[in-house]
């Protein structure tokens, strides 16, 4: 029983990382209706820049944190210019068929952001060619004992950070005027344009904020491990995508629940079936959620739009 509870707690804490990683992906999708495949690579290149500062120039932790976030924003801007700028000009509602749900530009954005993913990953590897690279470590030295249960304080911190960021952002989107503008451009591009909102600028801003959040996520997750590998980009994209999909793409609070659910399912799959089973469970969960008959209602609904 204690073991089961311990696994669940470990999963919940791990889920915090997934949620924070998925947040930016969900925001991008919500506001642009495009999936940014270069998302993981953006976070990875930013993290590599941070690690480079740390290794080569002995930069202090705060400087690394700031530069990771700034770099992620800058790289995100580049990705947006190159892959998603076409979506901005599209003030008319998409003519695409509701069943297919893809228009040509969506496919093109997928493909070109994939190409940029490869490019950014290669740049990161050129910067630091080794497989393991040191990252400023904020890992806790010991676990907190809560009765028979052990809690890792650093993971708890990341999970709390994720919850605070997500719930705070959701509240901001719901309550503030700027949040309203953001949701308006995401949900009704044409209407927002007609009432005089600078749709294109707001969407670029949304993209930049999402990328900055990916920088925050990358720093928080990597500071626990104290190292970064070339697998990080793929990890960010996949875990983030599953968390965002589970919560419903474009839903901010949903990412938190999606991330936690993924963490718990993975932790139990690992304790029952080992590392391969954990990986399998991730995809099986994703697949089942996507094709589940009880979700038949949502699938016909048009995708996109931002929900708090």
């Amino acid at each position: 029983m204690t073991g089961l509870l311990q696994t669940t707690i470990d999963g919940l804490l791990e889920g915090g990382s997934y949620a924070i990683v998925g947040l930016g992906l969900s925001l991008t999708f919500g506001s642009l209706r495009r999936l940014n495949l270069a998302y993981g690579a953006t976070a990875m290149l930013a993290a590599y820049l941070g690690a480079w500062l740390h290794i080569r120039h002995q930069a202090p932790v705060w400087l690394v944190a700031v530069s990771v976030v700034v770099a992620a924003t800058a790289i995100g801007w580049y990705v947006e210019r190159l892959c998603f700028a076409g979506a901005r000009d599209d003030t008319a509602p998409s003519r695409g068929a509701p069943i297919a749900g893809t228009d040509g530009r969506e496919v093109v954005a997928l493909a070109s952001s994939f190409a940029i993913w490869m490019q950014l990953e290669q740049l990161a590897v050129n910067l630091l060619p080794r497989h393991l690279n040191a990252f400023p470590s904020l890992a806790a030295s010991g676990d907190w004992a809560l009765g028979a249960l052990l809690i890792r304080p650093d993971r708890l911190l990341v999970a709390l950070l994720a919850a605070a960021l997500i719930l705070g952002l959701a509240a901001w989107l719901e309550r503030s005027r700027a949040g309203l503008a953001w949701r308006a451009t995401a949900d009704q591009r044409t209407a927002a344009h007609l009432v005089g909102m600078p749709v294109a600028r707001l969407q670029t801003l949304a993209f930049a904020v999402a990328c900055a959040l990916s920088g925050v996520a990358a720093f928080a997750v990597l500071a626990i491990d104290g190292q970064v590998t070339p697998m990080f980009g793929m990890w960010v994209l996949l875990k983030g995508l599953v968390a965002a999909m589970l919560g419903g793409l474009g839903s901010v609070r949903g990412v938190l629940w999606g991330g936690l659910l993924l963490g718990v399912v993975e932790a139990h799959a690992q304790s029952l079936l080992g590392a391969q089973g954990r990986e399998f469970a991730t995809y099986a969960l994703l697949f089942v959620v996507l094709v589940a008959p009880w979700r038949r209602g949502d699938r016909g609904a048009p995708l996109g739009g931002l929900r708090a």
Partner: protein
Amino acid sequence: MSDRIHSSTGAATGADGAFAQAVRDALCHLPGLGGAAGTHAVGLASDMAIMSLLALSAYLMLLVGRVSFGQQAFFGLGAYASGVLSAMFQVPLGLALAAGAAFGALCSWLLALPTLRLSGLHYAVATLAFGEMARIALGWWHWQRPGEDGPVGPAGIEGFRDIRWLLENDVSPAQYLGLTLLVLLGVLVLLMRAERLRLGVGLRMVGQDDTLAAAQGIAVDRLRLFAAALAGGLAALGGGLYAHRTTYIEPAVFDPMLGVHAVGYALLGGLGTALGPLLGVMLDLGLLDASRLLPGWRMVIFGGLVALFLRWRPRGLLDETLVHRIATAWRLRRGTAGTPGLAPMPSPPNLSRRKTP
């Protein structure tokens, strides 16, 4: 038998362990059948032909408006199925390949059933999830039978060794290349013939606007299922050819990068004709091979080029407009009369939902 050579020239980027690099190496330097520099061209040509089959499978899905990141699963399933048949049960190569393709088509059809009504993005993610599930499941699969040099068969993540039909039957890599090219040519001819029929036009209509296509009386679901089965069969055929070429397969080869590259080739080469994906393969593998001079930067340059390119030519190099123009110019030159593109279409069997009287 140490015929598993990894080309070291391409891996000299210092990017050891880099995910993208590893995949590129797996893709471009698929382990060859012995020999060194001399057989390099033969090996590269075989790889390109095999990748072309996978790219054609992604192309078929794109034609019906689907981005699939899971075609590598059928490639892998076909490789395993035909490998099991030829290495464990001594089935002749042609039969093993055909059975592998049929198996891939069946699996693809089965996957298409529950995902038929998903939106484009959900479909892409669902196929990615399926591909990964298949890859992990192959890593769990242990089934061996005694062979000449010890047990033969899939051994989990250690892979499936000794698919030695070619060695046992004295087929040289060059002969095998000929066979692969012949298969590719046959597939191409069939696809290009089909595109001129109402079937091909129907597929394109479904991809452009499925509501409109349905309103025109086209059986959208049936065409999508058909395209998925055909695409799965093509990918599995490529996988079977790959398995026999390398004699060794492992689940890690069939990771999402493979499928995503296939989609990239089709999009880069163009969706206007079945020759498009081939052009994409040639550009990527050919360019990569040619640009060994800047090993660490080739992906930086190539990735940027593809992204820039896609902004101006969203349906690839050989898109429908260009293909149409070329076809028109060709016909005019040959002096064939008639208005191209407005030719009456032959009446199709079994395509309309309602039977026309």
